[in-house]
């Protein structure tokens, strides 16, 4: 196993950042640490990198006990949210930095830098300064820089957080393809569940310093371990005593199945191909339902219509936590 974290605890003053975290990150895969801001995922990543020290617990990287190893000896590549480019060096020198530190021969360095710049499509910017690059370009350079030393593990701390939506989507795609090519064990931190679901092979959900669930995107979405994981990974609505997905509700204009709940459509919004409904059931629940435009048209659902709701067959449901007053 590539990274083994066991019994990790970390406090900042009174604030508990990590609470007895145990997690194993498989070799060669793209793993996401997903969770809300302040949940501890960046702290965990930095402890793995050696940029922070845990209070108790151990970190093993590629079988080597790394808990007390300084960052520079761990052979991990790190990519920061705000790029952390070396502002006074050209792009080529930035990428070459790790190799120069390791005192590699000059032509080897040149060759590797050229190779990497081609990989990240920045060859024509080799002699520019980072201040002349856009955000997306800087992050690609930072990635090339981290990969230059052939790390055993690549760690990315919300790498696309500082970029605008379009660039974020492009780089997300690009990272996945890069990983498919290069196969370095990669761990990245994000609070964007769509990003995690799209890119990662495996997701570790972290909240309030604790690991909530570990699994593939499908597992997490379809079989959430608890209410938190379910509501974090996608839209959640409540019907009767269960939480389920708004698109997992069958909606009809007449009671079709046993156990249907009657309600009135109080709000209807059309967004693209989705139609989002808010239904007030006779039991007093306010339920969100999502259907396609075609479906809504076929059943002639409008604001004020009376409808019947049933959970779809095979829908993932989680018993609802005690609702906050």
């Amino acid at each position, binding site marked *: 196993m590539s990274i083994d974290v066991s019994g990790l605890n970390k406090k900042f003053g009174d604030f508990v950042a990590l609470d007895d975290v145990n997690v194993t990150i498989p070799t060669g895969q793209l793993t996401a640490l997903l969770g809300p801001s302040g949940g501890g995922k960046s702290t965990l990543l930095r402890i793995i*990198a*050696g*940029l922070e020290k845990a209070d108790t617990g151990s970190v093993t990287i590629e079988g080597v006990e790394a808990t007390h190893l*300084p*960052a*520079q*000896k*761990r*052979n*991990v*590549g*790190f990519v*920061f949210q*705000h790029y*952390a*480019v*070396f*502002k*006074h*060096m050209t792009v080529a020198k930035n990428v070459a*930095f*790790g190799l120069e*530190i*390791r005192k590699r021969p000059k032509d080897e360095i040149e060759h590797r830098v050229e*190779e990497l710049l*081609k*990989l990240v*499509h920045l060859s024509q910017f080799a002699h*520019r300064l980072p*201040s*002349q*690059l*856009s*955000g*997306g*370009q800087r992050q690609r350079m*930072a990635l090339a*820089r*981290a990969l230059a*030393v052939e790390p055993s593990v690549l760690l990315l701390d919300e790498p696309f957080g500082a970029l605008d939506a379009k*660039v974020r989507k*492009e780089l997300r*795609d*690009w990272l996945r*393809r*890069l990983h*498919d*090519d290069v196969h370095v064990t990669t761990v990245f931190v994000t609070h964007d569940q769509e990003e995690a679901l799209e890119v990662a092979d495996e997701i570790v959900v972290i909240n309030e310093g604790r690991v909530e669930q570990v699994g593939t995107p499908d597992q997490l979405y379809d079989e959430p371990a608890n209410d938190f994981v379910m509501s974090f990974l996608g839209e959640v609505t409540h019907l009767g005593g269960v939480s389920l997905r708004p698109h997992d509700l069958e909606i009809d204009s007449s009671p079709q199945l046993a156990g249907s709940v009657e309600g009135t459509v109080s709000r209807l919004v059309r967004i693209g191909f989705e139609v989002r409904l808010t239904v007030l059931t006779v039991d007093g629940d306010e339920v969100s339902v999502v259907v396609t435009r075609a479906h809504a048209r076929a059943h002639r659902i409008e604001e004020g219509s009376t409808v019947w709701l049933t959970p779809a067959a095979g829908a993932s449901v989680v018993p609802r936590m005690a609702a906050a007053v």
Partner: protein
Amino acid sequence: MADTLVHPTVEEPPVEERRRPPRVRKTPVTYLLRFIVTAYLFFLVAWPVSLVVTHTFSDGLGSIRSLLEDPDMVVALQLSAYVAVWSVLINTVFGVGMSLLLVRYEFPGKRLLNSLLDIPLSVSPIVVGLALVLVYGGRNGWLGPTLAGWGLDVIFSTPGIIMATTFVALPLMIRELVPVLEEIGIEQEQAAESLGANGLQRFWRITLPSIKWGITYGVVLTLARSLGEFGAVKVVSGNVLGQTRTATLAVEEKYLNFDQQGAYATAFLLAMVSVACIVVVAIIRPKNHP
């Protein structure tokens, strides 16, 4: 390596760091403020300084030539230069170290230390001189007699002048570097660390180059201040002609002895060095740096 992009990414145009300042509408108030600032700078700075220049050259290069032919004057100028260089060296090393300490570390007493570092600027230089005499005075200072016993004369000798000058210029480098270090942050160094650089490599390859313009300005300010120090040096040096008289003391001496030409010429030489430094830095500084 295989092309890892599905489609070629549209290369965003390179972002220019320097943005045009927003256009402000010019009102009568704008012109009035400009006039006030110009008048203020003119009467307080430009005109008096330009008078020094005109008086110096009132009969060509004669006054400067006679200045440089006087061996005692040459010694005074050399002493000023020597002291200034030492002050710059000490304050650079100490300044960089102290700035890093203040910005990067937390420790008890940090705020007190921060305030103490402002004392040299807020205390009158004459007080500085007297304090040094009190501690290092050869006959009845606290440490003076001990040091004199070891053969080290501080007061009325060059080491004392260096100490006094270094002290009054102390905060300049630090106050220049602290904001620069705060702005840079530690991420670049963490990145370097993750790439395998040890402490010394990070300092040499990342920290120092990042603050080089801060250091440059700090050096210029320290040099100017050190060359121009008068009060503390007057108390500490004893003003012995040919031995412990610095250029600034020489200016006073000449002026009091009605050698106005000499006074202006010396003052001009001192001022020129500082102005030259500032001009050179302004020229070689890259345009997109603050």
